[in-house]
Each structure stands twice: as C-alpha cells, then as structure tokens.
C-alpha cells in the first residue's frame, strides 16, 4: 500500500469519526467560563495502527526491549565458554584461524597474534545448566528464562557501522532503525508517550560515541523515530513548560491553540489541522506523563532493591526499571544503551566492572516482567554490536565479527536453551550461524510480521529491514 496514502486515509477516517465534534467541544470548553480551567478537553488521538496486516494469532509478542551492550562485549568473558582457549593462553594464535580475515586494531600485528585465555571462570546455572561467566551471576540466576545464541555474526568491525547494521540492517547510514520499522508496521499501543523510547547509561569502560542515527527513522516519516529520554535536564527535549509558566497556564495556552486551530479547520478543512490538534494534546499529555514516568519515588523499596538502584540516577539499573514502566505503558520498542564494553586493554578487570554495572538490573527486569505476567508478551534482546578477539591486544581484546554471542528472552523464545557454537578457540561461528539479519527476521516473525513483506518505497526501490537477507531462526522458538 502506498504509505502516504495510508497515513492520509488514517487521518480522513479520523475526520469522519468526528473531529469537528471534538474541536467543538474544545471551543465550548474554552468559551464557557465555568469550564475555563481544570476541565480536560476530550480529544481523541488519531491512531496510527501500522500498515502491516498481522494475521490473527500470529503475534507472539507486543514489544521489544533491546539491552544494547555498546562497545562490543567479549563473548569469551560473558556467554561463550572456551576452555581450549585457556590452554592456549600466551601461545601464538594458529594462522589457520586468522589468515585473510578482517582485523581492526591488531592489523599491524598480524604476524604476532597471541591467544588470550578466558579471563573469568564459567559456571553452570539453573536447571538448564547454561554456562555463563561468573562475572554475571545475576544473569546466571535467570538462566532458565533465557536463550543464549553463541553463533552470532556481523559484517562491520567498527562501532558505529556495526551499531548501524544492528539497528537498521545495513551499515549505510540513513535507513530506518528497527524500532521505527516496528512503529511503521504496527503502530504504537500508547497514547501519551512515544512508541519508541531510548535510554542511555555509561560505566565500566571507554565510552564509545553513540550516534542519533541508531534510533533515527531514516527515510520513514519522523513520527516513527526513537525519542531519547534523558536522565538529566528535561527528560524529553522541551517537555517542560517555559520558566514562569505553570502547568495550568500551559494548559490554557494549549487550549487556546486548539480552539484557534479548530476555528481554522472550519475554514480550511485540512486533515493536517486535526492531526495538529491531536499532537498538541499528546504533547501536553507528555508534559504531564513523562515526569510521572521518570519519577521512581512511588516504586516500593523491594522493587528498588531488586534492581539495585535508588532510581533516577541515569544508571543502567535505573533505566531497566524505567524500561519496565515503559512496558506497562504500552511503548512498542525500548532500547537501553550501556556504553562501556570496549575493552581493548585490561579486559580482566574491565569486563568485571562493566558486568557489575549491568548484571543486576538486567536480571531484575526479566524477573520483574515475569512476576507481572508481561515477560511472555515481551522480547528481550541482550547483546552488543560485535564480540572480541580470542587474540590478545595487550591485556585486552580487539573488535571481532566472525563470532560473538547474545541472548534473548520472552514471548516465543525457548527458555534455558542455547543455540549455535563457535570453534574451539571462539574465533568463528561454525555451527548454526545467526547473522544480524536473521535476528531481525526472527524478531519481526515474533510480531507476526513476514520480514519480506514489511517494505517502504524510497529512491525507486522497496526497502526492508532485512534488505535482501534474513532467515527466521525457528529452532529457538517455542
């Protein structure tokens, strides 16, 4: 279906359903001194329900929480146990592994590559006995809820293009991110918050930059872009009224704007005006709902303890708690970036420190969603843009794309399960490889979307999140 036609029809439908009536109500409220303050104007937001016709019963999940471990966490210190690599510690990396392969910063040392054994012990956790690094004991405690993929592969060896691939399915900048694709395809389920929310935190290692393109809508309309919620300053840009304007005054100004637009609409009959009225209403709702969302003071102590946060400090744990609150409010795509996994040096202590920043919050989010019955309608993805080399870079590891790990949990995902494997030194994925495109295809499949059918025409061709790739990884699905 033609996209702009779709949005137009949507607005027209809204009009037919009686925007005049709504506008008139606003005007009446405005002109009636008895209603002049405190009365909410009843305006309906024209909903974007998405362009993708999901078949009944095909959707296993309603939303995604992407816990993005930015910087490239080492699979060898987190999710992929490699005892053989430990035996090779300090010995030359066999050339058969590395010859002709792309290397990032170790490029100049191609003839002097040495193995670096896993820096932390792995343990078996839960009934499933999944092997997870001892630096992630809390994630270990949810081992029976998660599915570890140990055969991930990507195409891009530097942070920014690798993130771009992870988010948009290509390293070429300017394409929509997966959250934007979902909003475009399915719409949002919440009426007072954006459908795609991004939260960020730092700690534990070098903070690689994160570009706004990671949550940009690319060529899709900007209404589908991710909105960053900030832990300092306005939580959303300009979500607070100007100085000297309290919420009541702001409400009155907005009501006047709505009434003026409604008067204009009587003359111009422009569907954009109805949308504008609705968006001002949503803006005002955001002005009230965002501070309420960000305020964690009404969370009970045992929940704060579960996450290990006092809340509101911009930490990863605090963001995990916010993610749960966003989930409750119907946000479609929630992305948490933790910038701190780029351990080129000192990976022993570095990975341990970063793990401490994310371990408890992550596990708490899964447990909390589970106890509220929301885990089985949510997909959680935990992982970075790539992994790290089995070869030493001093006391650290370099970027690595031939094999790395991630885990998923939630609706439709086999719990306590692992899929795929790297070779015995953890260099290349060799068994049941899962490319980033496959991850995207699987995610869309869980929403009841055929990744080949969610398209948008731009510059003369139909674009997809998975471009010309992607296979659903059926084996990890229940």
């Amino acid at each position, binding site marked *: 279906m033609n996209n702009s036609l779709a949005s137009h029809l949507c607005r027209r439908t809204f009009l037919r359903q009686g925007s005049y009536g709504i506008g008139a109500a606003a005007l009446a409220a405005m002109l009636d001194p008895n209603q002049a303050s405190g009365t909410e104007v009843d305006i309906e937001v024209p909903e974007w329900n998405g362009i993708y016709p999901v078949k009944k019963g095909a959707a296993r999940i309603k939303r995604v929480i992407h816990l993005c471990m930015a910087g490239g966490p080492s699979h060898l210190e987190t999710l992929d146990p490699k005892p053989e690599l430990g035996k090779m510690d300090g010995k030359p990396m066999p050339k058969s592994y590395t010859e002709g392969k792309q290397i990032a910063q170790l490029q100049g040392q191609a003839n002097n590559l040495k193995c670096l054994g896993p820096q932390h012990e792995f343990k078996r956790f839960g009934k499933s006995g999944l092997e997870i690094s001892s630096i992630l004991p809390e994630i270990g405690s949810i081992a029976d809820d998660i599915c570890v993929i140990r055969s991930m592969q990507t195409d891009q060896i530097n942070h920014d293009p690798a993130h771009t691939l992870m988010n948009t399915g290509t390293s070429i900048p300017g394409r929509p991110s997966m959250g934007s694709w979902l909003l475009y395809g399915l719409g949002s389920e919440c009426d007072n918050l954006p459908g795609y929310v991004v939260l960020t935190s730092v700690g534990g290692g070098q903070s690689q930059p994160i570009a706004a393109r990671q949550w940009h809508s690319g060529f899709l309309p900007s209404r589908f872009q991710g909105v960053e919620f900030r832990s*300092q300053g306005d939580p959303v*840009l300009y979500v607070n009224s100007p100085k000297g304007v309290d919420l*009541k005054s702001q409400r009155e100004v*907005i009501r006047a704007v709505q009434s003026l637009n409604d008067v204009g609409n009587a003359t111009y009959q422009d569907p954009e005006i109805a949308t504008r009225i609705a968006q*001002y209403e949503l803006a005002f709702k955001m002005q009230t709902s965002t501070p309420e969302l960000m305020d964690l003071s009404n969370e009970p102590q045992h929940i704060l303890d579960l996450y290990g946060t006092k809340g509101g400090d911009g930490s990863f744990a605090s963001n995990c708690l916010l993610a749960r609150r966003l989930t409750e409010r119907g946000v479609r795509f929630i992305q948490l970036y933790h910038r701190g996994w780029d351990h080129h040096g000192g990976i022993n202590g570095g990975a341990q420190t970063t793990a401490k920043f994310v371990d408890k919050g992550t596990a708490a989010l899964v447990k909390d969603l589970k106890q509220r019955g929301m885990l089985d309608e949510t997909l959680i993805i935990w992982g970075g843009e790539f992994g790290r080399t089995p070869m030493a870079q001093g006391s650290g590891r370099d970027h690595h794309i031939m094999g790395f790990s991630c885990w998923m949990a939630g609706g439709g995902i086999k719990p306590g399960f692992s899929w795929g494997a790297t070779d015995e030194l953890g260099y290349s994925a060799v068994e049941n490889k899962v490319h980033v495109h496959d991850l995207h295809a699987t995610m869309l499949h869980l929403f009841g979307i055929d990744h080949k059918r969610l398209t948008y025409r731009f510059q003369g061709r139909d674009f997809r999140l998975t471009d010309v790739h992607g296979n659903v990884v059926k084996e990890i699905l229940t």
Partner: protein
Amino acid sequence: MTEQETSNANWKPIAPSALSALHETKLAVQEDHSVLASGPGHETNTYSVTVKDQTEKLTGIRIEVLPHDSLPKKGPGRAGNGNFVISEVKVHTVDAAGKRTPLKLVNAKASFEQADGNSNPYKGWKAIAAIDGDTKGATWGWAILPQAGKSNSWIAELETPLQPESPTTLVVEIDQNHTNVGHTLGCFRLSVTNGKVALDPKLELPAEIQAILAIDADQRSDEQLAKLLAHYRTISPQLADIRTKIETTQKERTTTENAHTRSTLITQTVAPREMRVLPRGNWMDMSGEIVTPNVPHFLPSIDAKEERINRLDLANWLTAKNNPLTARVFVNRLWKLFFGTGLSKVLDDIGSQGEYPSHPELLDALAQEFIDSGWNIKNMVRLIVTSQTYQQSSLPRPELADTDPFNRRLARQSRYRLDAELIRDNALAVSGLLVDEIGGRSVKPYQPAGLLRHLNFPRRTYKQDTGNEQYRRGVYTHWQRQFLHPAMKSFDAPAREECTAERPRSNTPLAALVLLNDPSYVEAARVFAEQLLSGDLKTDEARITQAIRQALSRDPNAQEIKILTSLTQQQRNHYQANPEAAKELIAVGLAPVNDSLDPIETAALLSATRAIMNMHEFITRN
C-alpha cells in the same frame, strides 16, 4: 654591526693533543680543531680531551656543539633527534709528576637551553646543571632541543684563573650520563680564553653569515652584503618595533584566514584510481572486473574528448540540449517548492519507477524554458509565481473534495507546512528579531544542555551565540550531523546522511513541544508582545487584531479575537497573583527586556502571542 663584530670575547680554539672515550667510541680531530664522534655509540659516555703544553693564562673554557652531516638530524648529538645531554664538565691540570689538580668552574652559560617541565630540578636543560657536581642527580645537564642541526656554545669561568709557570697539561672531561640512553655528543670544539669569559653572539649566526663576516668588509660582494643586511634586519634592536608590528599583522592575517571555512573546489589526481566491480560489495575482494567511468547503459551515451570520461564530460552530458532529464528533474523540484507537490510526485525518481507526471506537457514546457533561458533559475521562479495557477487562493473548494482530494490538478493553491528553517525564520521575522544578513559562519541558537554528550573523541561542547548571531536565519544553524538542533530535527530537517530530495512533513508531539517550549520561540513571542504593547494600541482587542495581521497576514475573525482576549485576561489575572512568575517568563532569552512595560502585561499578552505562534496556520504556507 661593527659593534657586534668587535665585541667578541677572545676565544681561541685549541687542538687536542689526545682524545679518549670511557666507552668504545671513535673520536677524531677535524681540520677546524672540532672533534667528531663515530663508530659504536654507547648509552652513556665520558669524553676526555687532553691539551698539552698550556703556557698562557687561562680564564675560561668554551664547548661549541656543532652540526655535522654524519649525525642524526645533523647533530650535534648522537641521539636520534640530534640532541645530547652534557651532564657534567670537569677540568684539571696534570703536572710533570702526574699530580692532578682540579680547577673549579663557575658562571656556566649557554647560547640556548632546552625547556623542560617540573620533573627537571632546574625546570630546563640548563648550562649550570653541567657544573653542579651532579648534586641533583647525574642525569641532569645541558641540552639544546629543538636546535638540532644548529651551532650552540656552552661557557664557564675558572673560579681562579690558571697562571702556568711552566708548560702544563690541561684535561677536560665531558660526562654524558643522561638516563635516556644514547644522548652523547657527536661534534664539538673546545676553546679557551685568557680574557673576558662571554658568549660569542657570532656563533649563533647561521654558518653562511659567519662565512660572510669572515671576509673583509670591502671584499664582500653585493650579494653577500645583501644577505648580511637581510639577516641584520632580523636581529637589529633598532628594528624591533617594526618586527613586532609585522609579526602582529601576520598573526592577524593567519587568524582571519583560519576563521573561514575552506572547501576544496577542484582537485586533480595524478593517476585515476583503479576501480573494480566489488562482488556483492565486498571491498576486500579484488577479483572483480576493472571498470572505467560511464553512464548507465540505458541512458543516452556520453561523448568524451579523451579516452577516459571525466567530470567535465559528465557536466556537458547532464546539460546537453538533447538531454531533457536534468531540466525536467530540476523544474519538478522547483514546482514542489511553490505548490507542495511536484508535477511528478516522486522527486528523487522521475523515471519509470516514479510517478507519471500529472501534467506531462507542462513539465516538458517548463524544462524546455529552463534550458532555453540558459538555466536561469530566477527566470523560472518569476514564471511560476506570476502564473495564475500560483496566485489562486488556497481555500478548499468542496466540489473538488471527491474528484481531486490531493489537489493534483491545481484548481486551487495548496497548503503545506513550512520547512524547519523557515519556521524559525518566520517566528523571528514576526517578532522583529530576525537578522537577515547573508553569509558567514554557522551560528548556535539556544539548545538544551547535554545534547551532544553521546559524542566522543573529542567530546563536544556547545556554546550558544550571543548578540545578533542568536537571531540569524535557520539555514545558518549549526549542523551537528548526528545531533541536529531539536527545532530542526522535529520539523524534519534531514540528518544529511542520505541525499534527501524531499523531506517528509511530519506532525508530531515533539514538534509541538518545540514551538511551545523552545526558548527561541518563547523569546520571539515575548518580543512580539513587547512590540505590540509599545505602540499606540490601547486594548487587548486592538493588539490581538494587530498581532494576527502581522503573524498571519489577514484580519482575525470574531471567534479568534474572543479566544485570545479571553486567554489574555485569564493570564493577566494569573500573573497579577504571581508577579514573580511573570518576571521569570519575560526573562527567557537574551533579548533585553523592555523595562518601561509592566511585566504582568507583557506576560499576559505573551501568552496570546505564544498561542498565535503555535497555530497550525502560523507554520503553514497558505
């Protein structure tokens, strides 16, 4: 100059009678009495220079360190950077019986001393460090970086002048014990004096100038004299003021030049790069076919003057008389600017994958006109805006709603939202704040703190502009590619990562938040209100009527006046009860507050101007 030539201390280079090095290094005397080190270097070393049969009075010694072609960076040291460190200089005499008598050195000076930080006890590589008896450590001494490849000299006085009664043997030991290994001397010359112990300014002169000075004044050629004078101008105390002036002016020039952004207009590569088809885009796979520049084969072929097609050929091909495509694409985009939609709707693909034009003959006629007018854009703009089609009213015509819902047949004008930059310009223009200067650097409007915190290497800081720069047009807004100013981003300014022929026109709550709460818009509404209050208009109604005329270029209707006067009164009541809030509100922005006005009145009317500036009509091309 004469003065300088004659003020020299009477230094006499001496020929060593014997040379030795503590560690294996070959030391050889040159014709000019200088000593050149060669052969194996060593981490540290001590050179001993023996001068026999010294009979004259001795008041001081001098060590000249000299450049030599055989040394790294031409020396005078043997370290890779041409440097050395003389950590200690010791002098003693030996009498016939072999008895050593040390001579104490004082007042060490050098023509140049290398700078250093706090870890160095002398805060620099000073001459005196070479006669301190190594009391502050053997590693410290005299060094000369960055003067590699140049002559310098070190001098010291004897505390008690030596008056030999019989021929005496003099030994000078030069320790080089710096911990940064290999900082030993490569070429040096020893001199002695029996008079004043002073540095010789002549020694700091370039070798070429020294050579000219060595020639008798009346024997110097014109060219030599010119060189001498040219050098003199760089050191003459009388010309110091002029030199400073020149230096300052040059600095200003550099600053001015660097203040402009430079862009490359033309580059010439010597040999074109070899380009290959990359199999499935893999740039590491060099097995693909080698290709040369060409246009896609389904398009008309391109003529080339030379064997290889260049950019001029491409430009000529694009604008050839018999190629209507370029002009068609351009006028289609121009049409979009004036009617909201192109004659063919898909701006970035006007081929068979795009949309067949609604008015193909018109598109062709405009394209032909564009070519015939010599690609004159202004001519095309005039042609379009003087047309009857352009000048129609944009009011809807109910009878067209079913037959032409998207107004493709243009039986009326279109209405569409302004682009991001113009929304800003419009608000500033209405308030009277706009500075419509053309050109210059990018400017930084108010922006929420911390917007750039996700960037790194280097971390970015954003300092908002003050004064006129704050009110310049939107096209000059600083463009942080990944983190666009929110007012630009919310109104669909592109991230500039993809070529964007057509921006989407979204309608989002984030855009509403910008117009409602961005200080730039609050400030514009305030200045607009102040302007209305400063005039002769006495009533809310009169001011609001004027405000609508100014902002929307039309008269208000009764409902609008009622809505806005009622809002103004409501807010007046509110701010009368909260006068501090009124002051806070009108203080938003850098534009000076009009103190002659009552803050409560300004705040009340500001609410009305804010409401007008948030109207859909205010950001719409009607």
